[in-house]
């Protein structure tokens, strides 16, 4: 069996999500898969009337993916998870756990990645509980 997924580019992913939101889709989740040592697949799953629809974003693992949290707030959890597990970065995250959602210092960095990764946090998102973020 093969799964049909609509390929999107990083520039269009937020727009594509917004379209689906406007069309009444429910955000199911995102999945990240390491394709090879350099590339990652980020899949966005949506649901409408019990039918699933998937978007596929294929990107190099050291790039920065625009966060869809402005569209779907609920995505903050899964985007943080992907940050933790794959070392991939999301720009503009509503609540940014800075690679500490699941993993502590002592745990391996970006365990799901194939090959070496640089998982150091990069400025951009706001940490939770930051006074600025609770405006």
């Amino acid at each position, binding site marked *: 069996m093969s799964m049909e997924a609509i390929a999107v580019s990083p520039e269009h992913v937020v727009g594509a999500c917004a379209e689906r939101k406007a069309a009444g889709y429910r955000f199911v989740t995102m999945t990240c898969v390491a394709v090879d040592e350099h590339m990652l697949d980020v899949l966005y799953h949506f649901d409408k009337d019990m039918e699933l629809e998937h978007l596929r974003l294929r990107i190099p693992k050291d790039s920065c993916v625009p966060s869809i949290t402005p569209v779907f707030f609920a995505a903050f959890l899964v985007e943080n998870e992907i940050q933790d597990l794959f070392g991939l970065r999301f720009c503009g995250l509503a609540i940014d756990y800075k690679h500490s959602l*699941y*993993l502590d210092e*002592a745990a*391996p960095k970006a365990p799901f990645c194939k090959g070496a990764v640089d998982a150091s946090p990069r400025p951009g998102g706001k940490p939770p509980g930051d006074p600025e973020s609770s405006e």
Partner: protein
Amino acid sequence: MWERMTQGSRIKSPWLLHYDCGSCNGCDIEVLACLTPIYDLERFGVVNVGNPLHADILLVTGTVNHRNKRVLRNLYEQMPRPKVVIAVGSCALTGGVFREAYNVVGGVAKVIPVDVYVPGCPVKPEAVIDGVILGLERFRRKKSGKNLLEPGDWGEERRG
């Protein structure tokens, strides 16, 4: 006489602190089930206090990971002596099926001394009761006062 009284009472009044160290809930709900009418651990004076400062027995379920090992140690240190640690379920004993997962440190014994091991996946409530009763044995051989043996030390019976 006072010594004997407190020691006797210790066996009759084990207050429980249950810490879920990252279990799949299987053992947790079985531990909780022990407190409910069918098993009723309160028959033995067991109260689930949920607060290390009141507890005599630390009952741990689940695998230790890099984040919760600190919590586990903290809770253990906050308990007043004498105290007993019971590891419940395969995960708490060795890490169980998750031994090889990247975020798993292993069993509880890697962080704090363990007195009683209750195997099972998940353990049955009867096994938890057995484990608690076995753990109480430790109080029987403990002296109160200053020279309390450290938990995990069963004296001459300890092997290996």
